[in-house]
């Protein structure tokens, strides 16, 4: 009989499912693993404790690395990035915007670095085309006139929502499945084998058991926690980084600072915004999403060096992500922290390392290398299962996910459609141009499943513009109430949770314009709606739903 790690009362487990492989983690790596398994004919199930892309995969700046960022100090990662960059462009064109990238050195940056960097690019196979400062500024007039060297590299921006939905939908077309809001509360371990997991629905509390011949632990910063459920030790270093979305693109090309990796060295135009990143702060928690004031100051000041004036622009929203950094024990010598740790990934076959079959952990790495990470993890799982089919995920173009056709847009497309009568119905979110029928369709897509306003935000970009839901929040709550026949109390509760969620991302940025915006939002919520009074005495929404907080890009 299976021994349950953790104290789980057997009688509340209501259903049992069996699959070949259970993938834990709905980020890019987990989704890529699910797809990889499906193509090899392995029946798999993916679970995530929240929604897809709510972890590190959603909390990044949107960069599809050319590898240039690592060319100066981490050739292995640089090589992986350029190869995978080209593969993702080919197999997931719907998720990639080919912005191109620039590496810009200014007179304050180390003068000897560009030569070293260029050598790294050559060795890694990254095409780096030298430009004159005049050429660069002709393409990107917002760049500083003080340029000492500038190169063009094949960076791009990638929409992790669309990439992950593309992977998951493709996997589903092969008969695999993915369940969200399912937290793994125990791994079933019998002797030296892991046999599956016990899941708890984070919205309803319902529990179920999944039996699997192999479990892939693709939980990024939570990899140590999940491995710990099987009594295994995986030590992850956590490095949190802050990002800020400015309310226009500022540049149309990704701009990297050509210097040794440091805080605040990248600007990524993504959709309607420009994301400034990032910092690297060692922390002790996988979900430490704090942003300290110095990080905001530092990021703005550094971005201002390459794009003068940007620090006085309107900052819409800030978020932090936690990079999972893993160094195999034999590599670690003394204290290794933050940027010193290589950004390549690790696959731990626990059968090999610990003598425990049925568990493979994959962690570290980049979103850019998610397909490769999945390939290596699935190779290890297949070896345990005796499956001999090779990986084929680089061979075929993914179908455009339905979720992307609904969500993936440029704002001007929506405006054009609105003005030509192709998007009927009232405009609910003026900033992101979301209409009532779109909102109602998104709600209907959840069927009987619980749905939070924040889920609809991720589906439609509702509330992600300058006003941060000040106007659309109450409208969406009213529409949700009538669509789902909620009580007025539940509608108020839903709005309260959304207000809290939106505030978290603007709180670090409250000065000037955005302070004025939040004053207006607070005026609406308090004085016009009386929301603060209504929320007194209403219990907060289940913590798990409220915790499905920030996902990238404002």
């Amino acid at each position, binding site marked *: 009989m299976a021994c349950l790690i953790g104290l789980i009362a057997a009688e509340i487990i209501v259903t049992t499912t069996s699959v070949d492989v259970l993938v834990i983690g709905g980020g890019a790596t987990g989704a890529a693993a699910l797809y990889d398994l499906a193509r090899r004919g392995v029946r798999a199930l993916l679970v995530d404790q929240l929604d897809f892309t709510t972890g590190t995969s959603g909390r990044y700046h949107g960069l599809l690395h050319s590898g240039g960022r690592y060319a100066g100090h981490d050739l292995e990662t640089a090589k992986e990035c350029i190869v995978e960059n080209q593969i993702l462009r080919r197999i997931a064109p719907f998720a990639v915007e080919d912005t191109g990238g620039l590496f810009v050195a200014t007179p304050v940056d180390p003068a000897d670095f560009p030569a070293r960097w260029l050598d790294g690019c050559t060795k890694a196979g990254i095409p780096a085309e030298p430009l004159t400062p005049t050429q660069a500024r002709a393409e990107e007039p917002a760049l500083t006139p003080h340029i000492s060297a500038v190169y063009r590299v094949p960076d791009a921006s990638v929409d992790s929502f669309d990439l992950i939905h593309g992977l998951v939908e493709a996997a589903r077309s092969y008969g695999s499945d993915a369940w969200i809001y399912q937290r793994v509360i125990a791994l079933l371990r019998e002797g030296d084998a892991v046999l599956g997991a016990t899941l708890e629905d984070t919205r309803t509390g319902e529990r179920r058991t999944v039996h699997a011949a192999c479990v892939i632990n693709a939980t990024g910063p939570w990899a140590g926690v999940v491995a710990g459920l099987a009594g295994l030790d995986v030590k992850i270093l956590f490095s949190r980084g802050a990002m800020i979305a400015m309310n226009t693109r500022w540049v149309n090309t990704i701009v990297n600072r050509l210097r040794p990796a440091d805080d605040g060295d990248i600007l990524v135009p993504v959709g309607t915004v420009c994301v400034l990143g990032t910092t690297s702060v060692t922390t002790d928690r996988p979900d430490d999403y704090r942003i300290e004031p110095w990080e905001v100051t530092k990021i703005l000041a550094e971005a201002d060096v390459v794009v003068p004036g940007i620090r006085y622009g309107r900052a819409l929203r800030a978020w932090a992500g936690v990079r999972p950094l893993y160094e195999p024990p034999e590599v670690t010598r003394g204290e290794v922290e933050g940027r010193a740790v290589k950004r390549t990934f690790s696959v731990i076959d626990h059968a090999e390392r610990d003598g425990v079959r049925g568990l493979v952990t994959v962690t570290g790495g980049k979103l850019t290398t998610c397909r490769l990470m999945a390939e290596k993890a699935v190779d290890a799982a297949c070896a345990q299962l005796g499956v001999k089919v090779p990986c084929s995920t680089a061979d075929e173009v993914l179908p455009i996910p339905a979720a992307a056709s609904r969500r993936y847009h440029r704002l001007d497309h929506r405006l054009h459609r609105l003005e030509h009568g192709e998007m*009927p119905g*009232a*405009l609910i979110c003026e900033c992101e141009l979301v209409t009532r029928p779109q909102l109602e369709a998104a709600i209907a897509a959840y069927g009987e499943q619980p749905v939070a306003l924040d889920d609809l935000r991720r589906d439609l970009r509702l509330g992600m513009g300058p006003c941060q839901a000040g106007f659309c929040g109450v409208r969406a709550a009213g529409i949700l109430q009538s669509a789902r026949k909620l009580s007025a109390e539940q509608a108020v509760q839903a709005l309260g949770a959304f207000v809290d969620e939106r505030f978290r991302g603007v709180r670090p940025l409250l000065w000037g314009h955005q302070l004025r915006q939040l004053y207006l939002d607070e005026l609406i919520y308090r004085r016009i709606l009386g929301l603060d009074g209504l929320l007194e005495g209403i219990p907060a929404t289940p913590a798990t739903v409220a915790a499905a907080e920030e996902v990238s890009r404002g």
Partner: protein
Amino acid sequence: MAESRHSADVIVIGAGLSGLLAAVHAVKRGARVRLIANGWGQQIVSPGWISVFDRADGDVLAAAQRHAVVQPDHPYALAGQEALVNGLALLQEIAAEIGEPFAPPRLDGRNLRLPTMLGGMQTPLLAPQGIANGDLTDVDGPVLIVGFDGWRDFYPEMVAGNLSRQGIAARAVSVALGSGRPGWDEWPADLARRLDDPAVRAAIVRQVQPHVKDAVKVGFPAVLGMERHAEVLREFQTALGCPVFEIPVLPPSPAGTRLSNGLRRWLLRQQARVQIGHAVVRAIVEGRRCVGVEVGALGHTNPFYADVFVLATGGLYNGGIQSDETGRLWEPIFGFPVSGPPGEGRTGWYGERLLVAEGHPIYRESGLRVNAQMQPLDVEGAPLLENVFAAGHLLAGFNPLTDGCAEGVALATAYKAACAALAG
């Protein structure tokens, strides 16, 4: 006041409730007034009612007076009770004069209990007649809440549901809005203008009539007419046979807009100069007196001179106080010192959640410190300029979002500043 050598005796900077009221008071006292403002004040994004001391349990003015004793740096304490009473009286007088009357205050001096568009409850002292009709104190029967099919800004089920939870019987109904459904981008002011049309109103009334039944009051979103509001209200009440009330909706508010428009037009009729959309960029100061202000124009500035100045440019929201990323707070026209929350940079500005009960320190702590004459003070507490008086949300010492006194402070301090200016 001696005859001025300038085109105006008084320059008022700011067109919010305090700027407009200060200008009205000065005009009524015979002064030649020039009002210069960069934009509309907060009144047009506010619900349209007058909060004096929302949390008062009994007589509101008495409670406000008691609060001033407890918090001596509150603008109420500085302006004094008389200024509050007179400011309120002046507002009611002028509002009636311009045809946008406030309902008479309750005889017992208590606050109204007004429903919000979520079905919450707000307790201001005064409201325009249409909004005040929604007073739910001792309501003795069901309330009917009417919405418009497909309109994005009002959800009658939400209002009725939350009122019912609070023990007030309420029903909801939606009716079609005259010809066709609302458009994709329809604001409250757009609907208010549509309701100026008698044909649109007739269609609404016909649909609502069968639903009234035993309802003792009928509530609509606050879009009952823009230019012909009084007529719309009268007509609806006659046709539906019971009091009809308005529930404030998302900004900009027709009620606030009507009041602003009415006051501006009144000032123009009295030969006051009103310049809206003109930013005052700096003050012209000689010694301890301000002699004029420079107003931005295309590529240059134009000076305007006067004897006395009322500064009512608003707080952080309206731009009377500016802030930056480093935590610096400043007053951009005169460079008056601005107080702020204790702590380094922006660290002490905000609480952890947007709707924290105590409000965010930045709003209560930031602003100008003034004396009882509304003269801005230096850090030692001495008046900076003899002939400049400040009013409204520019002042520190209260939180307009959580203290339930936003309009009361605007009126009391504007009245006091205008009096002090005319005396000086």
